[in-house]
């Protein structure tokens, strides 16, 4: 057994090659640490620049302004990456949602039943709050995703009960909403993602709400680890 296992337990013995790698990584650590220590920490970075155009962005929180207005293109691509990850996972595996051998504790079930609606409420609050304080689509989406994961580990199989078409629309809602806004901005004679002045506030909130729903569903369906069985594509 020990002889035929070179992969894991073979590493435990002294390996000069591994020692060499360790020393090289140690050297890299020192170089990186020196680089971090000599970083120009003074000044205010881009904070002043952001503060100067804060009024135009339609929101009061500087992070949300950067995320969805000044660097909106970046965020658009990142939302697309999330969608691509779900497409990749769904095309590789199907989630079976079989019951585990051990029964879920009734305490856990009732706690999750209490928590899940509360978490949806918190997610909505975080999205709303993102316009003026810390919070926003990604935080709200993460809380929503956590609620979905809680339901999944308590074996309340909501992913397989929700109609598959509805689930797909939910996953696409954020990216498509973002993309539609971006293209509509172009059609009305501006640049891509250049929101009309004075109306940026509600546009940002609209994109944030749609993206939060999509991010939450994305995270929960990634946790499920595959396409729900009995899908539209199985017909």
């Amino acid at each position, binding site marked *: 057994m020990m002889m035929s296992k070179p992969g894991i337990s073979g590493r435990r013995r002294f390996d000069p090659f591994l020692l060499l790698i360790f020393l090289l*990584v140690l050297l890299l650590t020192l170089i990186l640490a020196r680089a971090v220590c000599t970083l120009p920490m003074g000044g205010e970075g881009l904070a*002043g620049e952001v503060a100067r155009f804060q009024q135009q962005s339609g929101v009061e929180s500087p992070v949300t302004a950067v995320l969805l207005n000044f660097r909106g293109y970046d965020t658009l691509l990142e939302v697309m990456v999330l969608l691509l*990850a779900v497409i990749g996972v769904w095309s590789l*595996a199907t989630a079976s949602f079989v019951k585990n051998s051990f029964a879920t504790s009734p305490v856990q079930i009732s706690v999750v039943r209490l928590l899940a609606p509360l978490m949806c409420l918190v997610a909505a609050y975080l999205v709303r709050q993102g316009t003026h304080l810390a919070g926003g689509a990604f935080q709200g989406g993460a809380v929503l995703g956590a609620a979905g994961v809680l339901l999944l580990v308590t074996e309340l199989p909501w992913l397989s009960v929700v109609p598959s078409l509805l689930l797909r629309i939910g996953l696409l809602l954020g990216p498509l909403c973002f993309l539609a806004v971006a293209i509509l901005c172009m059609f009305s004679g501006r640049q891509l993602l250049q929101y009309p002045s004075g109306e940026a506030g509600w546009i940002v909130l609209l994109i944030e709400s749609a993206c939060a729903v999509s991010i939450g569903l994305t995270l929960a369906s990634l946790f499920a680890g595959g396409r729900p069985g009995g899908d539209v594509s199985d017909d």
Partner: protein
Amino acid sequence: MTNLLYSLGGVLLFTMGFFALIACSHPLRKILAVNVMSTGVFLILVASAYRPESAGNIDPLPHAMVLTGIVVSVSVTALALVLACRVQETSNLAFLKQQRNGSEESGE
């Protein structure tokens, strides 16, 4: 100076993950190593965003990047785990086969 301490912690996390990425051969360990590395990068970014001179004490740009980066790294991890499961199902390598008990579990 506290933010420098956090930055150095981030560097340490990054290189620890880097070492594990090279030294460990199992795909799951490699995925975990990349996760530790990305956590180190996020820590450096957030720590270096602290600007005591500016208005809100922070530079919002790195914060926005980390915010999206965390969610993207979670989804990339999920995709990598599903790929690793497929590799384990189809691989003939001995060290992948040995640990195949209850490998149906996949997910985040």
